[in-house]
């Protein structure tokens, strides 16, 4: 498996977070939309949380992907050396 799962996972979370966050920011002037959550603009707050968690996961994933690439390079180098 040459794909670190944390890259797509973090990307998905941060995009979802951005959507929630922008919806929450755009509807700040309409508290009637948030009557079910007792007037709390829950989209905005939760959007921030999901977005930041997504960024952190992407960060960890990039390091992991770097390690996978390194290992792959090492393997192909070893393979070439064997062929010779």
């Amino acid at each position, binding site marked *: *498996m040459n794909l670190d799962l944390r890259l797509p996972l973090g990307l998905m979370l941060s995009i*979802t977070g951005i959507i929630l966050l922008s919806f929450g920011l755009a509807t700040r002037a309409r508290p009637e939309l948030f009557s079910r959550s007792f007037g709390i603009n829950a989209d905005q707050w939760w959007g921030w949380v999901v977005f930041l968690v997504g960024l952190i996961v992407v960060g960890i994933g990039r390091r992991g992907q770097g390690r996978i690439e390194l290992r792959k390079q090492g393997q192909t180098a070893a393979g070439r050396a064997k062929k010779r």
Partner: protein
Amino acid sequence: MPNLAAIDWMIVLIYFFFAISVAISLRQFIAGAGDFLLAGRALPAWLCGLAFAAASLGSLELLGMGAAGARYGFASASFFGLGSVVPLLFAGWFMMPVYYSSNARSAPGYLGLRFDGKTRALNAVLFLAVSILYAALSFYEMARIFAALGVFNVIFHAQTIGSQGVFILSVALPAAIVLVVVLLGGLGATMYAQVMQFFILVAGFLPMVLLGLKQVGGWSGLKSSFAYAAGHAPAPGLGTLAIATGVGIVLTAGFWCTDFSLLQTALAAENAAAARRAPLIAAGVRVLLPFLLIVPGIVAIGLPTPHTSMVVRTDNGAIYHEIDVVPHPAELGQGVVPARTSSAADPMGGNILSDAHGHPLLDYAMATPNLLPYNLPTGLIGLAITALLACLTGGVAARIAAVNTIFTCDLYETHLRKGSGEKDDLGMARWTCVAAVILSAGLACAALRVPNMPGLLELLALAFAVFYAPMLATFLLGMFWKRATGHGAFAGLIAGFAAALAHYGLTLPANAVRGIAGGWIVVLHHPPNALRQNVGTALCAILANLAVTGIVSLFTSSRPEPELAGLVYSLIPVDPAKPSGARRPAIFAAIVLLAAIAVSLIFL
């Protein structure tokens, strides 16, 4: 239920876009059946652990935990928390090293190496049966919920195709997603999708839990609202905790220790240490699940029951009558948990089902889903619906991937077409996948015609007792008793399954109707409730299997010890380079166990 807005659908689509594109990008790594069925045995421990936890978080567990919260209250946290953590730690610590070192491809495959071909085939057939039923029940329950919440009404044009049409399409759409994910990427894609499912589940449900707790007035408000809803305030003491934990262990240990849709995630790990850590990580995750999945059920039952009401107000001399009509089943329910009706496709229509005393039965499976539109605003509701859909497709995909492996490796390769090659196996695994999805989706639609379907909790406990309890004893004896023989295991498995069926056929819970609920041979005994009946069934199965396997084994000749190397716990080769390598997982397991006990105490 308000219709989903465009932003809600956007969130749903983003999840499935990522799940499917990950499957597509993994496709290039699949060269043979080994990559497709075992993900090439190259995955890190954290991923396997999260996938293990997520595989046990299909839609049935998600709905079941909410339902148990609404039905049994705080004690259910011990059942699902401590009751599953103990068997999981056992599976990780003692059983996983044997599974991994045996080099078996599947759980029945292990039995084949340890015992013989017939035990392997019997176990495989039992597992295939329970898996197809599980997938069908997942599709059925979730389609019911999508119909009740009206999730798909906009895209399916509910007016033109009717409620049955919506139900069938609500089965077909998730089934198609499952098929795409498993076909494209095999077990690897399934496990990647499961980890994403786990994160989306937390993201989607945590706001609902926090807002729900705020609504009922925090933790103490939750306790008093449940005590009020339960009619009387039974103070659950340490005794209740012990009973709930014990019931959980007896009923679910077979599931945690032998179910291949869970074990496959650990067997895909890169090495034996990672395979051992996977169930431990999963246990650590499960410790916190009661807060995420049981609390919503307790909130749902404690909310005020809606009633049809009329408010008269005058405005500038004009008189307004504002009538708020509540459907009959919702009015007869408790909190936001409605009464059960005879119609699965249209939960607000049909006749109200009631027990032998004429009290309406409650549809506890609806507890968590009904809380979503109650306190989540637009946007977050889309995220929660995504979580529901992701758990349905993820849970079923795990099942289907397990069915693929077991059918291909344990029946096709060994019995139907001996000596088939890797390429041949890969094709067979793909066709098995298609057949299994179509079969389970078809069964889900057929279940629409079954009158008096028992509730979700009853069906789940029944599956645990009848299918998993007999298997547990076979695996335990195989791993820890060198003297157990193939003939003994085969006879024991048959005896355990027969004992479970007999107990279930001879008893009927009080207030229940004969049929799926039990008593289909003749009713000899009325346990006070379905849970007692199921615990009895499970105990009968385990004891019958232990006794018969033990006796038959003593009268047949056992295999010589060298043949059993790596197949029995006491004969696993130890890694001489790292004798103390097991210390850190041991500390981790101890912390998980203590945390699980602490969570149980918080829920008392």
